[in-house]
C-alpha cells in the first residue's frame, strides 16, 4: 500500500449548484429560506448532496408536469448541513396564463382518481425497490457495488419525480377547502371543525402501527410480558432468543419485518443516512412493541382510530348541513381530497423516502466498509462524509486512495455545524418581510407555505402566553416538557410528557401514542407533526420557531393548542 500523506493544499470544498455560495446564489435568487423540516439536526454531506440534487429535481418535475402556473420549481442548496430553498417564480402574467391552460388538464386526473394514480406509483416504486433489495451488497464485487451505487441514485431520482405530484394535487384541495370554509363559515384549518373532517383515515403507517400493537398483544398472550417490561430493547432481543416461546414470537415478528411490502425497510430517521433502519436494528420496532405493552390494556389503538373516523363523519355531516344544496357535491369532493393531503402526506413518506433511504443506507454502508477495510477512510460511516462522485472514483481500487483527509475535514465541519446558527432567511432584500413578500409568496407554492416554511404565528395578547405557534391539532394539555433534538433521545420520552422538538417525521409517529402534547419549532398545518397529531388526537402546536430554545426538559408546560398558546409554568 502506498504511503498516505495529508495534503497541505488549501482546498475549495464547495460545489456550484449544490453548496450555497453567496456570491453566486444570492444575486440569482435573492432570497433563500431555511428548511427546518428537513435540516434539524444538520445533514451529512452525502445526504445533503442527494437531497439538494434530487428533491429539487422532483420539485421541478412536478411543477413542470402539473404546470403549476406561478412556480417552476424549487432550487435547493446546502449550507453547514442545512437546507435552504428558493423558488423559481413565474412573474409574467402572460406566462402564468399560458401555464394555467395545461395546469387545468394536468390536475384533473389527480382530482378524479387520486387513489388509482398513487397506487400505480406505489407499485412502480416497489418494483424498483425489490430489484435493489435483491443485491447482496456484502458479497458483491467492487464493480457490482459501483453499479449498485448508480442504480440507487437512478431509483432515488425516479422516487423524487413521483413524490410531489400527489402532494401538490391534494394540498391544493386542502387549501381550497380551507379558503372556502374560512370565507363561508369562518372556519380555518387550525379549527377543530375543520380538523375533525380530515382525520381518521386508514393508511399504511397506521396499518403498521396496528401490526406492532397486535405483536404486543401476542407477546402478552404468549406470556412474554416480563421480558418486554423489564428490559431495554437490545436486551429484549437477546432474552427472546433464550426461550422457545420467545424464539417463536421473534420468528413471527422478523417474518413480518422481512415479508411485508414495507416491513423493516423503514428508516428510523427521516432525513439522513446516519441512523439504522428497522430491519438493520430491530431494537427500534421492538421498543415500539414494548411501549404498547407498557401502556397496557387501557390503550386501544383500534378504538381510538374508530372514534376519530366516527367523529370525522359527524363533522363532515355538520358542515354539509350549512352548505347550500347545490354545493354539497363540491364540498363533499373537496373534503375527500383534503383528507388525502393528510393520509398521502404520511403514507408517501413510507413508500418514498423512508424505504429507499433504508436501501441507500445499506448500499452506501457496504461501500464504506470496502473503503474502510482498505484504509481509504477511517470507518464505514465516514462514507456519509463523501459525495457519490468521490465514492465512485475510489470504489474500484480503494487501496490506491487515501480519502481520510477529506472525510476527517468534513466530519469536523459537520460536527461543528451541529451548533452553527441556522438563519431563517438569507437574502439581499431590505428585510425579511420583503424577502417573503417578493421571493416566497408570489410562488403561491402550497408546499412551501403549508409545510416547509410555514405560516407565521399570530399572538393573541389577551391570552398572555409565553410562546406562540400554529395550531396543528386542537385541544389542551399540561405536562412535563421533554425536549428531543434527535431520534436517539426519543427513548427518554415518558408517557404523559409533552414532546418539544424541532420537527417530526413519520418515523416518529409511534411516540404520539405516548405523549400528551407536541410542540415543534417548524412546520405548518400540513406538516407531519400536525397531521400525526390530528390522527392520534394529540394537541399539537407547530412553528413556534423557538420552542426547543425556550422550553427546558423537566419544566411544566400548559398548551392551549386551539389558540396556539404555550405557557411555561415552572
Amino acid at each position, binding site marked *: 500500500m502506498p504511503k498516505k500523506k495529508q495534503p497541505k493544499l488549501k482546498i475549495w470544498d464547495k460545489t456550484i449548484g449544490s453548496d450555497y455560495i453567496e456570491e453566486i446564489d444570492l444575486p440569482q435568487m435573492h432570497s433563500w429560506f431555511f428548511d427546518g423540516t428537513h435540516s434539524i439536526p444538520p445533514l451529512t454531506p452525502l445526504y445533503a448532496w442527494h437531497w439538494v440534487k434530487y428533491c429539487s429535481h422532483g420539485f421541478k418535475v412536478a411543477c413542470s408536469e402539473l404546470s403549476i402556473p406561478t412556480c417552476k420549481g424549487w432550487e435547493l442548496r446546502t449550507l453547514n448541513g442545512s437546507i435552504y430553498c428558493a423558488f423559481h417564480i413565474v412573474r409574467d402574467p402572460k406566462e402564468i396564463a399560458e401555464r*394555467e391552460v395545461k395546469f*387545468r388538464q394536468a390536475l*384533473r386526473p389527480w*382530482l378524479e382518481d387520486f387513489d388509482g394514480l398513487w397506487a400505480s406509483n406505489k407499485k412502480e416504486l416497489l418494483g424498483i425497490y425489490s430489484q435493489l433489495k435483491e443485491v447482496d451488497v456484502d458479497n458483491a464485487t467492487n464493480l457490482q457495488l459501483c453499479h449498485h451505487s448508480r442504480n440507487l441514485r437512478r431509483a432515488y431520482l425516479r422516487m423524487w419525480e413521483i413524490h410531489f405530484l400527489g402532494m401538490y394535487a391534494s394540498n391544493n384541495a386542502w387549501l*381550497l377547502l380551507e379558503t*372556502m370554509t374560512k370565507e363561508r363559515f369562518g372556519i380555518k384549518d387550525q379549527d377543530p371543525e375543520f380538523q375533525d373532517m380530515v382525520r381518521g383515515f386508514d393508511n399504511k403507517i397506521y396499518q403498521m402501527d396496528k401490526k406492532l400493537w397486535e405483536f404486543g398483544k401476542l407477546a402478552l398472550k404468549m406470556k412474554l410480558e416480563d421480558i418486554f417490561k423489564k428490559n431495554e430493547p437490545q436486551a429484549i432481543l437477546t432474552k427472546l432468543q433464550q426461550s422457545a416461546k420467545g424464539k417463536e414470537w421473534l420468528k413471527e415478528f422478523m417474518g413480518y419485518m422481512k415479508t411485508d411490502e414495507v416491513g423493516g425497510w423503514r428508516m428510523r430517521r427521516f432525513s439522513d443516512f446516519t441512523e439504522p433502519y428497522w430491519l438493520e436494528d430491530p431494537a427500534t420496532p421492538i421498543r415500539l412493541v414494548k411501549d404498547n405493552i407498557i401502556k397496557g390494556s387501557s390503550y386501544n389503538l383500534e378504538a381510538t382510530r374508530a372514534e376519530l373516523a366516527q367523529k370525522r363523519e359527524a363533522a363532515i355531516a355538520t358542515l354539509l348541513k350549512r352548505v*347550500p344544496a347545490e354545493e354539497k357535491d*363540491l364540498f363533499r369532493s373537496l373534503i375527500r*381530497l383534503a383528507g388525502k393531503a393528510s393520509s398521502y402526506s404520511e403514507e408517501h413518506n413510507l413508500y418514498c423516502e423512508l424505504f429507499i433511504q433504508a436501501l441507500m443506507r445499506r448500499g452506501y454502508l457496504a461501500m464504506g466498509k470496502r473503503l474502510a477495510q482498505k484504509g481509504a477512510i477511517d470507518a464505514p460511516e465516514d462514507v456519509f462524509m463523501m459525495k457519490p462522485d468521490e465514492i465512485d472514483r475510489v470504489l474500484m481500487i480503494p487501496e490506491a486512495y487515501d480519502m481520510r483527509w477529506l472525510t476527517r475535514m468534513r466530519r469536523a465541519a459537520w460536527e461543528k455545524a451541529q451548533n452553527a446558527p441556522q438563519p431563517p432567511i438569507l437574502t439581499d432584500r431590505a428585510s425579511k418581510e420583503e424577502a417573503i413578500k417578493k421571493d416566497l409568496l408570489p410562488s403561491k407554492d402550497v408546499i412551501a407555505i403549508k409545510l416547509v416554511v410555514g405560516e407565521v404565528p399570530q399572538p393573541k395578547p389577551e391570552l398572555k402566553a409565553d410562546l406562540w405557534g400554529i395550531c396543528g391539532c386542537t385541544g389542551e394539555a399540561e405536562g412535563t416538557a421533554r425536549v428531543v433534538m434527535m431520534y436517539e433521545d426519543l427513548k427518554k420520552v415518558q408517557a404523559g410528557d409533552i414532546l418539544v422538538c424541532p420537527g417530526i417525521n413519520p418515523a416518529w409517529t409511534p411516540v404520539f401514542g405516548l405523549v400528551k402534547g407536541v410542540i415543534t419549532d417548524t412546520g405548518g398545518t400540513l406538516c407531519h407533526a400536525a397531521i400525526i397529531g390530528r390522527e392520534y388526537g394529540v394537541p399539537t402546536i407547530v412553528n413556534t420557531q423557538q420552542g426547543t430554545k425556550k422550553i427546558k426538559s423537566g419544566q411544566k408546560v400548559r398548551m392551549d393548542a386551539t389558540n396556539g398558546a404555550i405557557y411555561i409554568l415552572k
Partner: protein
Amino acid sequence: MDEANSLLLYLASKMKGETASGKLIFSFEEVGQEHNKLVGKKCANLGEMIRMGLPVPPGFAISIALYRKFAEESGAGEEISGYVSRLGELKGQKITLFDKLSQDIRGMIESKEIPKGISKMIASHYKELGKKVKVPDAAVSVRSAGTESRPGMFETYLNVIGVEDVLDKVRKVWSSAYTARAIAFRVNKDIPVMGDELGVAVSKMVNARSAGIAFTLDPVTADTSRIVISANWGLGEGVVSGAESVDRFVVDKKSFAILETYIGKKAKQVINKKRGVDWEEVPPKKQSVPCLSDDEIVAIAKMAMSLEKHLGEPQDMEWVIDPDFPPPHNIFLLQTRPAEAAAKKPEAVTDRMIDLITKRFYRPNG
C-alpha cells in the same frame, strides 16, 4: 312519425298563446309573462319587467305569428319544408352538414322580399318608437325571442338605424332560427328541424357606459346566497362573449353587502359604431378601474333580486348603464332568463374544483 306530422303537432302545442285580436306587433307595455307563446320569452319578460316598474328601454315585440305570415306569404315556409322533407337522418351527422343546411335555409329566408303589408306594419311601429324617444331614425337593437330560452343559439343585431336596416335585421333574426348550432341542437334534442320560430324584440339602443350581467346565484358554485355581477365598459356583448377579463362583484342577497370585488384588466370593450358595434381598446387609464360604483352595484343587485322574487327562480339578467341619464335612473334592463348553474355531474364538480383552485390561488389577482 314523419317530419311534417310531428312538426304540426309540435307547433300546435306552441300556438296556444295567440290572441284572437289579430294584432301582430305589440309595444312592450302590452305584453307580459303570459304572452310567451305569442311574442317569445324575451319580449314577454321585457313586458313583465315594465309591469313590475323596472326600467326597460322602450320598444316593440314582433309576434311569432308575424313570422309565420311572412313565411307563408313569401313562400319561404313552403320552400323550407320541401327542403327539410328531402333530408335524411340528421342525428350524428358532422357539423359541416349543419353548416350547409344553415346556409341553404337562411338563404331561403333572407332572399325573400318582406311582403308590403308586413314591412309597413314594422315600419310604422319603428316610426312610432322614433317619435316616442324623439329621434326620427332611432338606433335600435333587434333581438331574437323564441318561446324557449336558448342562450347563444339565435342572433342579435345592435345599433340598427333606419327602416331599411331594421327590416333587413328582422329578417336576419328570423333566419337565425336556422343557425348551424340551432339546427344541430334541435336535431340532438329530437326537436323538428323547423321547430323553432322566432319573435323579435326591437328596443331603443342604450348609450352604454358599462354593461353586463347579474346572476342571482353563483353560476360556478351554484351558491344561491349571493348575486354575482359581471361588468365591462361599453355594451354587454363585451361581457357575454367572455373574451376579456372583466369586473366581478359578489353581493349578499340578504344584506346587499358587497362581499367580493374583483377588478379585471378590461383591455377591450364593445361600443356603438356609426352603424353596428365593434370591439375597441379601452383607454389604458380606465382598464383597471371598476366600471360600476358601489351604489350602482347595489342597485343592480336589488333589481335582480326583485326579478328573482317575482319570477320565482334564480335569474340571469342583462343590464346596462346609460350615461345620458342621471343616477339612479341610469340603469336599464335588457333581458332576463332563468339562471343556469354549471351542471352537477361528477366531472362538473372536478371542473369547479380545478376552476376554483386555478382562479383563487394562481391568478395574479386571485
